[in-house]
């Protein structure tokens, strides 16, 4: 089959997963100016819960979402109300890096303690299954992960665009002081925004677990590329994160053909560097990031 077409399809599927994994990360910053280093640790936690669920029940890991999505939402609200809200506004962004770094280390330690450092992988009847479309082969697990990403991002978009809470959230993202002046409870919005961010981590972690080997320290591998995606997309912009994720996923996959794996992985950082030099607020960030 044509390597270019195959790589393009793989890049699109990978981009979808990246978009899902990065969505929550940009939301935290958009609503609260919080740099959430622990987002990828929560992803790995969700992946472990999916693995644990399947290993112990024999059921499909997707069913674990019924529990993990609301659970992560509640944990997100809790983390925001109990920990993040205590940080002083003047140093919020800087201190959030340190605080969430500590949360990430704590989650990694707990995962190591509970599940050990052994690498885990969910073995499903359809793990190696695939089908062919127009000469390109599509793995079932990758398509499921992509579909999960599409559904979660569509739901997030719907919540942001079509609900009253979404309007409040967007207003808070655009100008939290003005939003407070018109009567929006920005503290409540911040808590729910954080909860939604972690709920996307539950979906993302489960999608990740479908086709990856997981271990407690894996989150360090992810946080760099995810940060690059939200910076390139524009801090606080969910559509920006999705677009950047797709561009970077496809670029990485296509560049792998001539450049090899090692160099193709540097695309994130090359694009990040170029973005910071020529468009520091990202492609969709607008004035929000400039204020930061």
């Amino acid at each position: 089959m044509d390597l270019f077409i195959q790589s393009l399809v793989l890049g699109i599927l990978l981009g979808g997963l990246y978009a899902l994994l990065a969505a929550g990360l940009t939301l935290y910053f958009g609503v609260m100016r919080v740099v959430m280093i622990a987002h990828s640790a929560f992803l790995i936690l969700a992946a472990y819960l999916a693995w644990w669920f399947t290993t112990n029940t024999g059921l499909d890991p997707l069913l674990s979402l019924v529990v993990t999505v609301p659970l992560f939402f509640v944990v997100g609200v809790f983390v925001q109300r109990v920990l993040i809200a205590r940080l002083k506004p003047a140093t919020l962004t800087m201190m959030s890096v340190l605080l969430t770094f500590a949360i990430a280390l704590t989650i990694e330690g707990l995962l190591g303690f509970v599940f050990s450092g052994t690498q885990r992988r969910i073995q499903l009847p359809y793990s190696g299954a695939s089908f062919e479309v127009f000469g390109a082969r599509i793995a079932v697990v990758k398509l499921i992960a992509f579909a999960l990403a599409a559904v979660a991002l569509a739901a997030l978009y719907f919540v942001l665009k079509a609900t009253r809470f979404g309007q409040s959230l967007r207003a808070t993202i655009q100008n939290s002081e003005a939003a407070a002046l018109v009567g929006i409870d920005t503290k409540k919005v911040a808590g729910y925004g954080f909860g939604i961010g972690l709920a996307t981590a539950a979906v993302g972690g489960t999608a990740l677990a479908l086709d990856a080997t997981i271990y407690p320290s894996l989150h360090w591998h992810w946080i760099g590329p995810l940060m690059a995606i939200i910076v390139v997309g524009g801090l606080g912009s969910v559509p920006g994160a999705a677009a950047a994720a797709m561009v970077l996923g496809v670029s990485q996959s296509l560049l792998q053909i001539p450049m090899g794996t090692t160099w193709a992985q540097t695309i994130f950082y090359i694009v990040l560097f170029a973005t910071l030099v020529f468009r520091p607020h990202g492609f969709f960030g607008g004035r929000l990031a400039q204020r930061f």
Partner: protein
Amino acid sequence: MITSTRTTRSIRSWVAVMAAGGLLTLAGCGIDDPSEPGDADAGSDSTGGGGADEEAIQIGISLPLTGDFSEPGKGVQRGYEAWASYVNDNGGLLGRDVELTILDDQSNADRVASDYEKLINQDGVDLVFGPFSTRLVVPAAQVALDYGFLFVEPAGAAEDVFTQGFTNLFYAAPAVAQDHYNYLADYIEAMPEAERPQTAAYAAMDDPFAQGTAYGLKERLEAMGVETVVDEVYPPNTTDFSSIAAKIESSDADILVGGSQYQDAVNLIIALQQLGYQPDLAAFSTAPTNPEFAAAIGDKTEGILSPTGYTPEATYPTNAEFVEYFNAEHGSEPTEDEANAWTTGQVVAAAVEGVGCADPTPECQGQLIDWLRNNEVDTVVGPLTWDAEGRPQGAHLIQQYVDGEITIVLPDDAKEADFIYPKPEW
């Protein structure tokens, strides 16, 4: 003056308290010093026997118990602990128990160096054993060399290990990485030319051991005319193998050689399965011998092969005893990682018994090194001797999944089943 006297009294009182505290601490050290190696407080794990603690031979080890190499790292840990417990059950070494202090380097090369610094400098161990993987062995061996310690290691097989002037290093396995696939290369070379594979794809982790195994075979195959159509090197932290798999699938290579550890081999195989690629031969270094391998790739293992330096069925003098002891302890037969760790113990023990000392002094460590340079050691992987750089002078067996079991297929005089070629579909 009054103030001065009070101050003097106060100082005297503090000195008295500190002195009393110090004496109590010293007395405590004599009974059970918590800073001694092997103490759980030091973040270590110990395996001691029934002998008195102060007489135990302290052995320091750093292993990748978490991170990229955690699977094989824990195998090596099981092997070391089984060996220590076996030695203690059988009268110890020089009549003394052995006690292990095992630190977790998290598969990190910086961490492994500081671990051995701590073991030698702070914990004052008598001997050290090597860690797992070439990437960790090299910095660890450098620390051991700096302190003049004998350094026997179970898993640093890449050529890089033996070209850096480590005069204290000995690899406790039958062959270096470059030679692991020699029997397979011999087999392919002996095939009629029309039946030989024409093209080969190589995917190797950016790791001296993993690359060493793959490129050792690549050199041999290219010399006999097998064209290289993919030669891909990936970073150790690679998690998505779909693009590499697409390249290999697109090349339609006759055979696939993976220079791999455990996790990357599993991910690559599943990515290749997803793309429907079916090679005539699929070889992966180390991963297929891992007990978790079959479960990880969904039992589609038939025909996958791997070089190995060990088999539980080997008839070497001490092997049956090792297998029986390990089986009784763990309820399973030992793997290659566990056997190599046990072999490391056997090699060091032979030197210690040969010289009659086990302490960190330069004299004793020098004698241990000299003894190994000039003697052959019988181990569970066969009799071992080394060249001046520490390379063992032996060969690896070739194992293959046959009827769901990993089985020796090459060379002919050691085989338990016939070599399968071409490989059944996965």
